[in-house]
């Protein structure tokens, strides 16, 4: 066990400057909480009072060993019932990188939490118990990561200690996974054999599995290249807020760049008007930028006096967003209270614009464990399916495959105001 008396590992004045957001999904028995606890513990991200609380709590439950899983079980109900309810966020850093973990429960009834956690993740860890091989759950996690287009995936084959650290077990699971995910268009899969309980290949490489020559999980997380795809996409700035300072004759349009980049002098197309204008400045409170890029929050000044407001978009004139009043989309239904069926009226919130939407049809449901698409006319809680939507006003969007931020939207129930659906646009007209 690492003691806390040793000095902090990370060099003080060179804090890790890059950030990786990753999502984990797993059920109680997969050892997911143990894995995260192990990462925090072995990377020495825990402080003395956290360790002390952990030791006390582990003893209270009669555990001899530190129950690392308890580090991540945040809410009282979760501790009492030994389950994980919601998305929990964890933070740690090493000398190389800072990490934000979106830690989500793995059961089917928490699909919506997994979708939420995966929506902003650069990487997802799919955890598999080496004894059981691919289960319905691990298939679901892989499918969700693929659907949400998480750029990197790690297949962590856990509990290798319980299968005698046997390489053939690991290979078998890796091959089965590759066969299953062939259709998912996953961009990059890295399989790693681990034992979260003993710490094998989590932070340190394991002597117990000499046949494995790849990196430990943490080494991989520290070094994996995260494609900077936001800034290579076509330029999109959904307008959030018009900033006016009349006494300085200042008018600018603030927003977070949702794709691509923009520099002074470049032309932009304004939607809904369809007018073109030139950007005269890319402002921040610290001064003008030579070039602003996703995901920066900036304020653009424009050469022409056109009527721009919240919910509009400024975009690349030669590759503009689609102004769409009809959408075909994958949807993950998140409401425990109602089902989604044709005729439903909801609010669609897309970038900085909210519009009324009617569900024109429910086409099919995806079986996320077999990848089969079957006919369906309604979707229940945690179902994923394909639907058609008709909008009262256009949204300015892209297919989700091209841009996660201008291709994603949520559905909101008009009376309860609950967020009831996650929408991934496939076609816009």
């Amino acid at each position, binding site marked *: 066990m690492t003691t*806390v008396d040793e*000095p*902090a590992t*990370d060099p*003080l*004045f060179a*804090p*890790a*400057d*890059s*950030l990786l957001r990753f999502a984990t999904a797993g059920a109680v028995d997969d050892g997911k909480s143990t894995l995260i606890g192990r990462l925090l513990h072995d990377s020495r991200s825990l*402080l*003395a*009072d*956290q360790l002390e*609380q952990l030791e006390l*709590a582990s003893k209270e439950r009669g555990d001899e060993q530190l129950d690392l899983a308890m580090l991540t079980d*945040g*809410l*009282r109900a979760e*501790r009492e019932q030994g389950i994980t*309810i*919601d*998305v929990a*966020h*964890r*933070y740690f*850093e090493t000398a190389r990188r*800072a990490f934000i973990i979106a830690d989500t429960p793995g059961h089917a009834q928490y699909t919506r*939490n997994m979708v*939420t956690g995966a*929506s*902003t993740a650069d990487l997802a860890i799919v955890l598999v118990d080496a004894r059981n091989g691919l289960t319905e759950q691990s298939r679901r996690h892989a499918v969700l990561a693929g659907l949400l287009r998480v750029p990197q995936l790690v297949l962590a084959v856990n509990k290798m200690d319980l299968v005698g650290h046997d390489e053939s077990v690991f290979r078998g699971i890796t091959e089965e996974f590759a066969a299953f995910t062939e259709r998912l268009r996953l961009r990059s899969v890295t399989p790693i054999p681990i034992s979260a309980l003993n710490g094998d290949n989590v932070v340190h490489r394991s002597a117990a599995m000499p046949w494995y020559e790849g990196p430990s999980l943490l080494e991989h997380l520290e070094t994996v290249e995260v494609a*900077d795809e936001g*800034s290579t996409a076509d330029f999109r700035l959904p307008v*959030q*807020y018009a*900033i006016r*300072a009349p006494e*300085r004759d*200042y008018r600018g349009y*603030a*927003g*977070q760049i949702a794709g691509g980049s923009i520099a002074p002098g470049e032309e932009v197309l304004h939607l809904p008007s369809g007018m073109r204008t030139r950007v005269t400045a890319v402002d921040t*409170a*610290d001064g003008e930028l030579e070039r602003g890029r996703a*995901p*920066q*929050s900036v304020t653009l000044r424009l050469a022409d006096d056109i009527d721009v407001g919240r919910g509009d978009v400024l975009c690349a004139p030669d590759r503009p967003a689609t102004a769409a009043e009809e959408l075909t989309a994958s949807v993950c239904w*998140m409401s425990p209270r109602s089902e989604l069926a044709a005729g439903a009226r909801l*609010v669609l*919130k*897309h*970038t900085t614009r909210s519009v009324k939407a009617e569900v024109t049809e429910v086409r099919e449901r995806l079986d996320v464990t077999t990848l089969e698409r079957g006919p369906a006319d309604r979707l229940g809680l945690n179902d994923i399916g394909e639907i058609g939507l008709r909008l009262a006003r256009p949204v300015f969007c892209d297919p989700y495959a091209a841009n996660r*931020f201008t291709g*994603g939207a*949520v559905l*909101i129930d008009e009376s309860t105001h*609950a*967020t009831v659906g996650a929408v991934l646009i496939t076609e816009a007209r």
Partner: protein
Amino acid sequence: MQLSRLDVLESEALHLIREVAAEFDRPALLFSGGKDSAVLLKLAEKAFAPAPIPFPVLHVDTGHNFEEVLEFRDRRATELGVRLVVASVQDSIDAGRATEAEGQVSRNRLQTVTLLDAIAEHRFDALFGGARRDEERARAKERMLSFRDSFGQWDPRNQRPELWNLYNGMIHPGENVRAFPLSNWTERDVWTYIDRERVELPSLYFAHNRKVFERDGMLLADNPFLPRDPEEQLVERSVRFRTVGDMTCTGAVPSEATTVAEVIAEIAATKVTERGQTRADDRASAAAMEDRKREGYF
């Protein structure tokens, strides 16, 4: 070119601040004078520059304040030209809305009544807070835009899924939201940002000589609100505070750090979390924060 982590976090915070300002009628920013709220105020300033911050600043005043914090609060509000609303816990007590329990000196818990009253009186529908998810286990599960029912309560089992950078801010009259732009910041991030942006802080955050006494392993400032036991001797030490709250439950740490860089150096070497070290209110039980949040605490 990848953005640095602070740039990514800043960008995310500015986005949320602008979303709330755009979608809510009567937002306000909770300002305690602490370092997180100083950073929050800086971000609000940046989000609308060169225009002024378009919402008021709300201070829930426990009456157990450090002088330095009040001076700092008033000066920053004047400098930024924002309206300062002070809601006083003493007023709540005087009006019989809040009762100090026998033997209970800290007013942290009473702040909830005052806060909810201020929300009702000023009809605030969104409050910005400087809470971070790395502070505490219940906070780790809270959304960046966190819905509160008409009693101000947080229901951890019934939170709105938060996807991409979309925040569902639809509410009925009487309901409100809390917005936490610093959700994804760590204590280190906050200090690094303070350093980078030259964010001004109350002098309490830097080493100074002060009369303190030890209780439950914490150094508490000598103050008129907290009776001392005879064996609790006052000693003068060089200390600084890691958090700033009610004087009666906010502990100091021995320190020689007089600059931001020196503070960061001490933090990097520290072995105890911020709240564990210096907040008596969170030590009460593992679920202390969760319980207070459910009732409507920040």
